[in-house]
């Protein structure tokens, strides 16, 4: 189907600490002179009735880079990715695909442009077998006409192979996805998207429902996808997850662009501060510190009195 996935096996060795690994950047990435963007939004706006969901937001999505979209709840992250993935059409501004203006009429059109979206809660179907989930919507078949049927052994083989490239050992592709952990499910959805040739991979809060270890699993595969030359859009409200894997950071607040930075321009703490609205966070910290006595050991006992 596509030759790219063969490269993945080589990437496995440096998985030990992928999140903080210094990566071998694909051509020109990360130093402010990136390669040609696949997808670019220019001052895009979206209105729902009288509600301004998104106003003049710009971002570029480049192969071999992770573009992080950060923001609190209601910041417009979901609206932005829904525009990128064809769920909503934008009302103002421009969307460029490979430099040409475009407008997706449906998620299918975006998918045909090799833009794959993995939704946090819509990634997989728990009661279906792993292999059925993997190929859902793009099942391999043999035969023609009414005798067209699934190529089951082949499908199972591919799933086992693809998942093992991601470092997950699928014992039995017939087991239901419900038996996998939350992180593994996200990885299944990611490896599926990459297998089917995604050039742009949009991940909608892939770690927000996961524990620390599971988040680590997912972040590792975000890095792997990037190293295979996929352009990743990583939506998160957690700067601690976004900063280690991201190459560019876009922060939204209440539908507007707060700013965009490359990794060299911003530290994790600055990122967290920007997300929380800088001064706002300082005020909040002062408030909390004033309310709670500084000694951490006695916090539980004295907290109530204070």
């Amino acid at each position, binding site marked *: 189907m596509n030759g790219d996935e063969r490269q993945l*096996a080589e990437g496995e060795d440096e998985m030990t600490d992928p999140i903080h690994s210094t990566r071998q950047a694909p051509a020109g990435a990360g130093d402010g002179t990136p390669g040609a963007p696949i997808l670019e939004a220019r001052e895009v706006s979206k209105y729902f009735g009288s509600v301004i969901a998104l106003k003049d937001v710009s971002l570029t999505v480049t192969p071999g880079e992770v573009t992080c979209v950060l923001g609190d709840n209601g910041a417009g992250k979901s609206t932005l990715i829904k525009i990128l993935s064809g769920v909503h059409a934008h009302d103002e501004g421009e969307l460029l695909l490979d430099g040409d203006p475009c407008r997706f009429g449906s*998620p*299918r059109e975006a*998918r045909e442009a090799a833009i794959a*979206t993995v*939704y946090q809660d*819509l*990634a*997989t*179907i*728990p*009661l*279906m077998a792993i292999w*059925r989930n993997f*190929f*859902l*919507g*793009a*099942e391999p*078949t043999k035969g023609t006409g009414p005798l*067209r*049927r*699934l190529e*089951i*052994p082949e499908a*199972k*083989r591919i799933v*086992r*192979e693809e998942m*093992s*490239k991601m470092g997950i*050992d*699928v*014992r*039995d*592709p*017939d*087991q*239901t996805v*419900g*038996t996998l952990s939350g992180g593994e499910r996200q990885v299944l959805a990611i490896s*599926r998207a990459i297998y089917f040739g995604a050039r742009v991979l949009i991940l909608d809060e892939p770690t927000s429902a996961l524990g620390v270890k599971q988040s680590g699993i997912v972040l590792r595969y975000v890095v792997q996808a990037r190293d295979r030359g996929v352009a990743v859009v990583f939506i998160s409200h957690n700067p601690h997850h976004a900063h280690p894997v991201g190459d560019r950071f876009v922060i939204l607040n209440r539908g507007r662009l707060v700013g965009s930075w490359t990794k060299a321009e911003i530290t994790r703490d600055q990122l967290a501060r920007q997300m929380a609205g800088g001064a706002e966070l300082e005020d909040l910290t002062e408030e909390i510190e004033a309310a709670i006595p500084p000694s951490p050991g006695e916090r539980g006992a004295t907290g109530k009195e204070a």
Partner: protein
Amino acid sequence: MSDAAAAAPAGGPPGEHVVDERVSEIGLVVRLLRRPELGALLAAFAVGLFFALTTDKFGTLDGAANWTDVASTIGIVAAAVALLMIGGEFDLSAGVMTGTTGLLMGLLATELGFNIWLAILCTFAFAAAVGLINGLMVVRTGLPSFIVTLGTFFVLQGVNLGVTKAITGQVRVGGLSEASGFESAQDIFGGTFWSPYDFRVSVLWWIAVTALGAWVLARTRVGNWITAAGGDAGAARAVGVPVARVKVGLFVGTALAAALVGVIVSLRLSSALASQGVGLEFFYIIAAVVGGCLLTGGFGSVIGASAGALILGMAFIGIPFEGWDTDWRFLFYGATLLLAVLFNTAIRQRAEGAR
């Protein structure tokens, strides 16, 4: 199934031997427990064995011709209803549809003088149209199919009685046997085979519909989409499954299966009653649920639904064979349903790994 082939991926990636070794750990028992129809098949066997041992006639071929007949007319629709339920929807109009289609075929043949084959063709077209309407209403409005098809159910019941009375002046359509082509149609739909036991042809239709449904569900893309549409319609849509079309298709399929039974029953009796089919929808649902279908969709089995229909058919015949009052049938059906649901829930939790 094909695990032997799957366990040894030809030319698999180097350094992944661990995967292959661990596959063999999944035993036959686990794989069996994962099958949704397991409970229904075991129960069908137990019920059949019970009646065969405690009555004289049940275990004979004569007896079998009786209970397979009852099971077949339930099972044909139950197989389609199972697919619909796996697809996450309900059809309460399926029972009364068997009556509507029988009446329609009868009226076309007797009142309008249609050749019976033409009448059958028109009947199937009508059923497909009703299924289409059911499906489109559910898909377009997003209303629960329970409510939409409850509406269709009562509309059809009213039409059955009203139209039949208005045209014939009574509540039945008779005299189908005088229509042209009746003989050949009866052979195909309402006849018998394997004399002297005289099994009903409907049994062959039942087996064919079940086999087709099971094959579609397990082996085709559409089957994958049906399970996905019922399991999580949003996730299915997100990966490009045409959920709406799948669901509409399932409603059409259910209506066509009901029409097949309507045609079979009317040709067999050479008449149709306006009250035919009312209440049967619950039997289809019981059969499907006993067969392992989840009410919430996304999980189930066509073979299981047919095994469920077999249980209902065996009890229907077995209880009078025992000399018991036939009213006890209802108690049996209810108890079977409850036991099956409890059993299937336990099985499914095991299959899911119960996290």
